[in-house]
């Protein structure tokens, strides 16, 4: 193309210097640096032979360089998709390899200690009994905390200042105390008051009190998403406070609240594991007993797998719901 560069435009548009990135992104440079990285990785000093400091310094430099190299390619839109895929695979496998090689783990013992099938076979039924306790406890506490939360949120929405003061205190206190502290206090301190709560009741009460506060906040946030203008409009149409709540506010708040509520449910189910501290025979407690009895971490692994099997679908569900709420946009 014969172009008549207008020299002043050339001057106006041209860079003072071509940025480094332009050269760095050339395939030839990337290939050479890849080769260097791989060579570096191969000749990484052995942890047994050098000082620990020197070894970790080398390792972190290697990882940093590796990550930078991948980021350079991944962040470049002009590189085709399949190259990026390859780079991603390369990054992941390199990291896995480095971990395998240098974490100091004794991988030969992995199967024997972590996935010991005879021990697994012996522990499932105990663990499932624990699981049923976990599930029942969390469902009961969930319903009671939803009840508490809803009650509090509705009462609060009426804006009686004196009551709201109390509610705020309740919410603040129980959101601030970790559940485990609450359980310990209920279980170990209340007997001094002459009140004996058994471990189930302790868990139930602690979870209800604590998650009641969270749920109240959730519901309040849900009710507050409905603009005051709408409430005023409804009131000006002659709807009563209750009617406004029922016809205008709650229908709009529910789709917002449901995902958060499910999230609370997950968090609560996770927190039932804490009940093992106060000797509730739930999943984790059973697993720990088996762990001590058989001196093998396999039951713990099994417990983790069971927790995942129950909770992962719920987590995915929450993800899905959140995405849907976000997609449908603000509700007005």
């Amino acid at each position, binding site marked *: 193309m014969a172009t008549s560069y207008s020299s002043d435009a050339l001057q106006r548009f041209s860079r003072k210097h071509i940025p480094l990135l332009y050269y760095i992104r050339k395939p030839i440079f990337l290939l050479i640096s890849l080769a260097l990285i791989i060579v570096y990785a191969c000749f990484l000093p052995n942890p047994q032979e050098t000082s620990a400091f020197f070894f970790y310094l080398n390792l972190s430099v290697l990882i940093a360089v590796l*990550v930078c190299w991948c*980021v350079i390619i*991944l962040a470049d839109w002009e590189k085709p998709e399949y190259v*990026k*895929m390859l780079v*991603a*695979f390369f990054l*992941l496998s390199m990291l896995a390899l480095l971990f395998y090689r240098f*974490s100091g*783990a*004794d991988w030969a*013992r*992995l199967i024997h*200690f*972590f996935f010991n099938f005879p021990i697994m076979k012996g522990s499932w039924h105990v663990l499932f009994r624990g699981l049923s306790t976990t599930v029942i406890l969390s469902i009961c506490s969930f319903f009671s905390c939803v009840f508490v939360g809803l009650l509090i949120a509705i009462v609060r929405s009426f804006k*009686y*200042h*004196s*009551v709201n*003061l*109390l509610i705020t205190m309740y919410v*603040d*206190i129980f*959101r*601030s*105390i*970790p559940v*485990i*502290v609450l359980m*310990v*206090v209920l279980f*170990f*301190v209340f007997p*001094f*008051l*002459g*009140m004996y709560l058994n471990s189930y009741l302790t868990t139930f009460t602690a979870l209800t009190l604590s998650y009641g506060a969270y749920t109240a906040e959730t519901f309040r946030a849900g009710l507050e998403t409905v603009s005051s203008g709408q409430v005023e409009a409804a009131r000006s149409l002659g709807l009563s*406070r*209750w009617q406004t709540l029922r016809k205008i506010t709650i229908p709009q708040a529910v789709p917002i609240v449901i995902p958060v509520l499910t999230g609370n449910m*997950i968090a609560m189910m*996770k927190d039932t*594991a*804490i009940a*093992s501290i106060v000797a509730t025979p739930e999943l*984790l407690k059973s697993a*720990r007993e088996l*762990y001590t009895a058989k001196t*093998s*971490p396999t039951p*713990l*692994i099994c*417990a*983790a797998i069971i*927790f*995942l099997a129950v*909770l*992962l679908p719920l987590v*995915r569900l929450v993800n899905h719901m959140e995405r849907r709420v976000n997609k449908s*946009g*603000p509700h007005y």
Partner: protein
Amino acid sequence: MLKDYTESNTFKKLRDTSGRVPLIRQPVFLIASCVALVLYGSMLFWASGEGLVIRIALSVFVALLVTWTGIIITDERRGERLKTSMVFLVLAVLVLLFLEFHVTNSEEIIELFFNITVIKKAWPYLVLGFKTTISLAFMAALVSTVIGLTLAIFRSFDNKVLNFFIIAYVDFFRAIPIIVLLMLIYYGLPFLNIRLSAFASGVLGLGLNSGAYVSEIFRAGFLSVSKGQLEASRALGMTPWQTMQKVALPQAFKAVIPPLVGNYVASAKDTALCSSISIIELLKAGTAQQSLNANPSPLIFVTVLYLILFVPLTRLCGYIEKRMKKTQRQITV
């Protein structure tokens, strides 16, 4: 009449048709019932003892008291100050009743729960535990920020392979209870010859877990800046760095800070879970001292400490969230 929101329609109708204040709102009724309640209450205090009759009388009293307070509170024409003092008065009465009827040895209560000598004895250990809690919280925050930011950056490349692993990571740690994770790390890993100190296990467990949440927060922050704005600033000839600095970061910052602070606070609260893997943090120090002295004062004290630490922090989160929401100027178009 504009402020007449709190009355339900039926009351309004009652008043409009009869032109009178309904019976239960009339001062005479309120004062009379108040006097009756006081009499009833003082009788109860005198007749303290055991037995079913007392129990029933007590429950009836509490129910009446609560109803009466409800009537006062829902009355729009009473002043706020009166209502507030009323609520606290009733609360005090309820606490008194509880102490009177449910606590077997109420005279020893101070001795038991607020025993200064025991707390003094336990003090050095509690301080040590407190320090451990704080350093756990900071280290966990640091680790989780590094993990979360890295994951969010890699997530923003929108690469299917990486996304799969990042989502798997995030979901895994959202699904597994922290305490299970801590136990796996502390009790499980040594079998593989990976030996971490209790403190390191705690930091790792909390950091891995909270890192998952942090990465989601950063991702939402990145997404909160609309693509159109980035394009507009590029079209104005701003370099990527300038775009980042002047357009993207100020907005992402506002979207990120409130949940991030909330997450750090939550993760700081989760440090209490580390007591289960024999890290002597605040809770563990409290329980240890309780069993050592056979007195729950240290534990009470620890609870109060948690309150002192976390009530302001929780409030701060709420405040930041509210402020950011106010200053966040969102236009969708």
